């Protein structure tokens, strides 16, 4: 899997090359940006959900964690606090996306990791 992690924004989310490629493909397919929302709980709860931009109505309690290639990444403030306010790395792995999330390409889904920047994913 791709390794290089880019410090893309001043925020708390960075993305691997594979994630950026998937985002570029989604942007082209949707004619605009997508949005990410870090989920929690149950079957697919640890995955960031990827939607067409604006799909989830954001509320006062949603934090903007960062912007990756023009796509915003959000998390519920309570969830973020419960997780210990980590820096997240957006990546792509094989597998089916959970919930109503867009895929990161055929047979691929987005994941978020807490690895420090620069570390190669396993």
């Amino acid at each position, binding site marked *: 899997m791709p390794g290089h992690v880019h410090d893309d924004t001043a925020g708390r989310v960075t993305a691997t090359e594979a994630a950026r490629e998937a985002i570029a493909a989604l942007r082209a397919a949707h004619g605009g940006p997508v949005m990410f929302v870090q*989920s929690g*709980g149950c*079957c697919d*709860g640890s995955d960031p959900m990827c939607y067409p931009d604006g799909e989830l109505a954001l509320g006062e309690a949603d934090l903007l964690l960062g912007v990756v290639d023009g796509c915003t990444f959000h998390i519920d403030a309570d*969830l973020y606090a419960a997780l*210990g306010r980590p820096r997240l790395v957006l990546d792509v792995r094989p597998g089916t*996306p959970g*919930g109503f999330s867009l895929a990161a390409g055929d047979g691929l889904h987005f994941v978020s990791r807490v690895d420090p920047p620069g570390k190669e994913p396993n």
Partner: protein
Amino acid sequence: MKYEPPGKPGSPVDVAPRYENFIGGKWEAPTTGQYSPNLCPATAKPICEIPRSGAADIELALDAAHAAKDRWGDASTTERAAVLTKVADAIDAHREELAVAESWENGKPVRETLAADIPLAADHFRYFAAAIRAQESEITEIDKETIAYHFHEPLGVVGQIIPFNFPLLMAAWKLAPALAAGNATVIKPASPTPWSILKLMEVIGDIVPPGVLNVVNGPGAEIGKALATNKRVAKVAFTGETTTGRLIMQYASQNIIPVTLELGGKSPNIFFNDVAAEDDDFLDKAVEGLVLYAFNKGEVCTCPSRALIQEDIYEEFMGRCLERIRAIKQGDPLDTATMIGPQVSRQQVEKIASYVDIGQKEGAELLVGGHRPALDGDFADGFFFEPTVLKGHNKMRVFQEEIFGPVLAVTTFKDEAEALEIANDTLYGLGAGVWSRDTGRTYRMGRAIKAGRVWTNCYHQYPAGAAFGGYKVSGIGRETHKMMLDHYSQTKNLLVSYGAKPLGLF
């Protein structure tokens, strides 16, 4: 004994190379013409192909459901109950077949599907058959001449989105009350487990009138959304994670329809020191109660994934538990001796491994497990993960986030007050367990824990008749209880005046 895998000679389960959607009582090819391979998690090899449907297939299913809903809604409760009872009888008659199919597709050990998933699925249909027969309407005498009659009426057509962890049992939880109350339904199974419910349709598809029960498989982003946003759906029921739960509520707000949501959990399982006061059956039951975190390989919304043990018995009690955990037999899910099978998918195993890594980096101590086991032969590529225990404290991420795997986070507490504080220090409120020989204490704790279900001196029992659902971000609504009929019904009030005199206002 070992069951032969589905499709092999001697197996109780036949497998077709390809399955279709179940719409209007018939097998219908997806309008997309596309199919996806469906993997067995024990071998990582395909079982069969499943439709990769699109929004148009949801419309076809809704057409069929709407065509069927009036006749089904008008059927007498005697008639509907008879159908549900026949469904239950058919499930029982095909117990082994469904148990083996469920085990092979999901990875859960067949000892669990034979003893729990399949018999419970049948029982939920029987329970709601009885509940709808016994349901009564209320009449209120407003005054001597004015009577308020209340009738239960079906909602119409509902959408139900099923999780991967109990594909058949969760379908039964949702189907039985919806059908009992006179609704037609369109079901979207979880993407990792699309097949066993189609095997269920082979068993019960002829019993339920055509169009009353429809199953469409495909990607959540396409068909899940198409179902949840659809103007022709009168209610959506969902089990899954919080963000999709929010989206479903958002779509429901646009259509002004109700939802029931069963979302995640991070359930505390609390062991007071008096459990170890005697070396008896109760202590043994409590030890098993802790080890139940490995039930269904931890893929349970109510997994007792946080064990809170009173500090003065920690060493002794945890020692017994670790011994029991080390004795867990892992492997072929179709071997009745197997206690834990593979996780449902590769991505789940990757997620679990990453959490164990996160936990250790946070300073948690690995007490047992922590790795993917090396299995031989057919299961070498399966998605297995060892039953794992991490010791730490409640602020660690592994204590706060649902891992959905066989990973227990254990910590200690000094007294009842601290146990309660730790138990409630979570975003979730689905389940909890309290273990003590002091019933005054179990009652106080049970009432004070902010969770919808507090198992007291037991865990992981899911009988029909006990209401199940979440506090806090764990969801809205209750399941497995007759009150569920209200979640699937409208209330019609006829306010009738039997008097002859005008009001006298005009």
